[in-house]
């Protein structure tokens, strides 16, 4: 299987604080990988380095064997990494459909003047995008909501829309930042299914950060555990569950999370 | 969302409308020989005069003073009638801004149907309104805009004050003949057309009269507050007279600093100095022994002037400045022209204004020349701690 992402001991320092210390990830196609760790362990910082929002202090990030650190986030997205955010960042005042269409814009085939003069090329492509968007919405069980404003959707649906929007960029690697945060158990179970289904349907790799242990253990095939920026364990869910270091990090500091 | 047939209809109707308007405009100019009597039936006994001045905004002082002067003149004029008619004054505020001046002029012409317009003070304001008055063939008299360009707009635009150039000539003559000076330095306010204009005329005239001009760039800009380094350079160049055509705010500070630095050479200036503020800013030491050219002096012993000063003080409780006198004379010149005009249509009013000869106002005898500028005398004033005192009258 081909390698999608590789991080080569990436390190992020803010002033004197080392938020992430030599994190080395390897993600292959169809992998479903989790990063867990207590609050402040550096999970989101790792995401921000991968997606180009932060430039790693040390180390390199490779996407499909191409070095991408120092590349702007938008370009990285165009190269195939899409993400969601811990605190939902939808385009709140826009419709669900527009949210999806904006994500598809980086693949836009018509030029600026096509859009002003409404050429045939423009119309054809707009139609194609709209159809794609609607089918994507129906995959995420949001058909019929396309004209709603994003801010008016119920919370769980906003989370789903964020994932759908990320999928509209046609990524080869999807990063999910605490997708289950704030969801009730039923919604979480559905989400678990959805994540697995996305991976199978779109044949992509998924990397997720999660606090909800049940979800991580159930869905991930490989888990990285971070604590104070350091990688303290890597392995399958069962290996991680029995790893004494992990137990110490969790039980020792804040106990098993049970949200 | 928008829909194109609708926009198309809108555009087409606008096209239609605007073509009609052009036609209407042509018709209007064709029939301009007849007074637009049909549109103002009720006011047969009234001549409407519009006044565009800064009643608010940064130069409101000038505007308000001008309007005071105009009102004073108006009182006298309306005491008797002009061929059975009375003058009605409509004042519009231009906030001291060019765009607002244009709005005000249009409003006066179209809504109030004024026969003549008086205004404005700042040349840039008058320049914004003048093309409109010219296009619509409404005579416009500016009582106080001294920039050369103003009256070049067209034959309907005239002024009752002298131009910038004239002041340069007056002060050059004064420096060379009266003061017997030979070596002049010129300090220019870089942000002002007025200053540059006066300076260049002074330079030419002073050289013509046998003087020399120190060949150095002495410049400052409005809102500067410290001129010591500039003055040090001037002092080292050792002139026997300094020409400083600027506005009183900077001039005041500069005079004060010059005195502190021991510069005792006389400074000469133009009407930009003419404000009671000058004494306050420069201090008693600073103002002493300098001369300016201006339009008017409240100290002028002339009977007419003294009557005006008394009248003004009675009405407004303060001594009139140059703007009040200029506004006053502008109105009187207009009334005089209206008396001489064959009838009250724009063309004959314009002719009458432009043929004004030797009209004696409080700012001197006014003759409108072929360029529609006033040929009139200027006064040279000596600046003293107590105020400006009359020195001499210089005729063109």
């Amino acid at each position: 299987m081909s390698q999608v992402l590789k991080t080569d001991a990436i390190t992020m320092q803010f002033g004197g604080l080392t938020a992430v210390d030599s994190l080395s990830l390897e993600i292959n196609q169809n992998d479903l990988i989790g990063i867990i760790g207590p609050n402040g362990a550096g999970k989101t910082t790792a995401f921000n380095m991968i997606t180009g929002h932060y430039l790693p202090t040390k180390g390199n990030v490779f996407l499909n064997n191409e070095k991408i650190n120092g590349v702007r986030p938008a370009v990285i997205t165009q190269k195939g990494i899409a993400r969601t955010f811990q605190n939902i960042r939808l385009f709140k005042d826009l419709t669900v459909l527009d949210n999806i269409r904006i994500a598809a814009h980086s693949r836009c085939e018509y030029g600026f003047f096509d859009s002003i003069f409404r050429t045939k090329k423009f119309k054809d492509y707009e139609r194609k995008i709209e159809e794609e968007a609607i089918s994507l919405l129906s995959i995420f069980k949001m058909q019929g909501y396309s004209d709603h404003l994003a801010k008016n959707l119920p919370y769980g649906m906003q989370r789903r829309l964020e994932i759908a929007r990320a999928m509209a960029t046609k990524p080869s690697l999807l990063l999910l930042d605490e997708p289950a945060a704030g969801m009730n158990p039923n919604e979480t179970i559905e989400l678990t299914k959805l994540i697995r289904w996305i991976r199978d349907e779109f044949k992509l790799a998924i990397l997720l950060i999660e606090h909800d242990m049940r979800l991580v253990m159930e869905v991930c095939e490989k888990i990285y555990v971070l604590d104070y920026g350091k990688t303290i364990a890597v392995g399958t869910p069962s290996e991680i569950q029995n790893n004494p270091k992990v137990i110490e990090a969790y039980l020792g500091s804040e106990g098993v999370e049970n949200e | 969302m928008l829909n194109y047939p609708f926009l198309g209809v809108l555009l087409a109707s606008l096209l239609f409308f605007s073509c009609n308007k052009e036609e209407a405009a042509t018709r209007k100019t064709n029939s301009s020989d007849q007074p637009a009597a049909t549109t103002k039936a009720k006011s047969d006994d009234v001549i409407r005069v519009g006044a565009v001045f800064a009643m608010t905004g940064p130069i409101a002082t000038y505007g308000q003073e001008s309007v005071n002067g105009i009102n004073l003149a108006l009182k006298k004029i309306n005491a008797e009638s002009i061929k059975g008619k009375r003058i009605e004054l409509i004042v519009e505020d231009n906030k001291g801004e060019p765009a607002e001046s244009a709005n005000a002029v249009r409003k006066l012409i179209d809504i109030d149907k004024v026969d003549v317009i008086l205004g404005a003070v700042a040349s840039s304001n008058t320049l914004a309104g003048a093309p409109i008055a010219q296009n619509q063939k409404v005579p416009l008299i500016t009582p106080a805009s001294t920039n050369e360009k103003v009256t070049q707009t067209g034959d309907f635009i005239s002024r009752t004050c002298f131009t910038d150039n004239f002041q340069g000539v007056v002060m050059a003559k004064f420096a060379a003949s009266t003061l017997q000076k030979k070596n002049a330095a010129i300090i220019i306010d870089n942000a002002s057309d007025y200053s540059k204009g006066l300076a260049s005329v002074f330079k030419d005239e002073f050289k013509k009269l046998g003087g020399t001009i120190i060949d150095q760039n002495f410049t400052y800009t409005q809102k500067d507050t410290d001129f010591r380094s500039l003055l040090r350079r001037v002092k080292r160049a050792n002139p026997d007279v300094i020409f400083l055509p600027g506005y009183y705010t900077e001039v005041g500070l500069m005079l004060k600093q010059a005195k502190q630095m021991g510069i005792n050479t006389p400074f000469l200036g133009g009407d930009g100095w003419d404000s009671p503020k000058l004494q306050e800013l420069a201090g008693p030491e600073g103002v002493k022994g300098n001369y300016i050219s201006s339009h008017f002096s409240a100290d002028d012993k002339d009977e007419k002037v003294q009557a005006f000063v008394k009248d003004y003080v009675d009405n407004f409780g303060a001594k009139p400045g140059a703007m009040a006198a200029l506004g006053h004379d502008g109105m009187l010149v207009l009334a005089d022209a209206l008396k001489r005009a064959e009838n009250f249509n724009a063309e004959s009013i314009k002719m009458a204004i432009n043929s004004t000869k030797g009209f004696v106002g409080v700012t001197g005898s006014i003759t409108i020349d072929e360029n529609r500028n006033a040929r009139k005398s200027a006064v040279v004033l000596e600046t003293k701690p107590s105020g400006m005192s009359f020195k001499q009258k210089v005729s063109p």
Partner: protein
Amino acid sequence: MDYFLYLTQMCGIFMILAMGLNLINGLCGQFSLGHAGFWAVGAYTGAAFSVFTNLPLPGFIILLIACLLGFITAAIAGLIIGIPCLRLRGDYLAIATLGFGEIIRIIFMNMDSVGGPRGFTDIPKLSNLFWVYFFVVLSIIFCANLIRGGYGRAIISIREDEIAAESMGIQTFKYKTLAFCIGAGMAGLAGVLFAHTTQFISPNNFTFMWSVIILLMIILGGLGSISGAIIGAVILTLLPELLRLLGPTVSEWRMVIYSVLLILLMLAKPTGILGKKEITFSFGKKEKA
């Protein structure tokens, strides 16, 4: 009635200005306070073209060329200013654009060839009601088409959430610059029309206060709404003039009344008259699926 025709033209000119700023501020979410600067660039370029070249062409062709030049130079000015400034955010961007707006004005103040502080005179009267509204309609179509296509949506996404937009593959800097340049260009276009309507321009026409008034227009109408920008432009152009017509007492106090009305309007409708809504003409339009 020339006065009202003239005011109608002024409304049109301010509509274009407001739509341009709406693109920058309302749609792209970039707080610009330098719009009057671009207006000045267009006005001076257009006027300089028609005065100095003096081509033996029909007036409207000269006007069209001037408009094109005004648009392009103002857009280039927008590019020059936008590239360094658009990295700044919020109030910092506002103050930097304000600074550039003033710098542009001061440069014209120091250019003797275009009249310096006295102003630029003798500009031919080439613009009329038709041409002003021709460009207004063109601008409306332009803006409406822009926001209904991918480029417009990309621009709007920056207003909504710049970080999310970047993460969705939108090169935010590029689109910010695009919106900024077009907005500046539209201001330039309005400048050309303005110069050829009033026949006289001076640096004092383009002070910081005007940037603020144009901003007022779009906020009053409803930030982000094209029809709002248009309504705002009409209200703020006509209001001070209508107050003139209510007799001398009102006229004396008109600026005071104007400011009180402004405050009251904001207190009554804080999101502007239209909010983000558009007034649309629904006849003949296919319903969206």
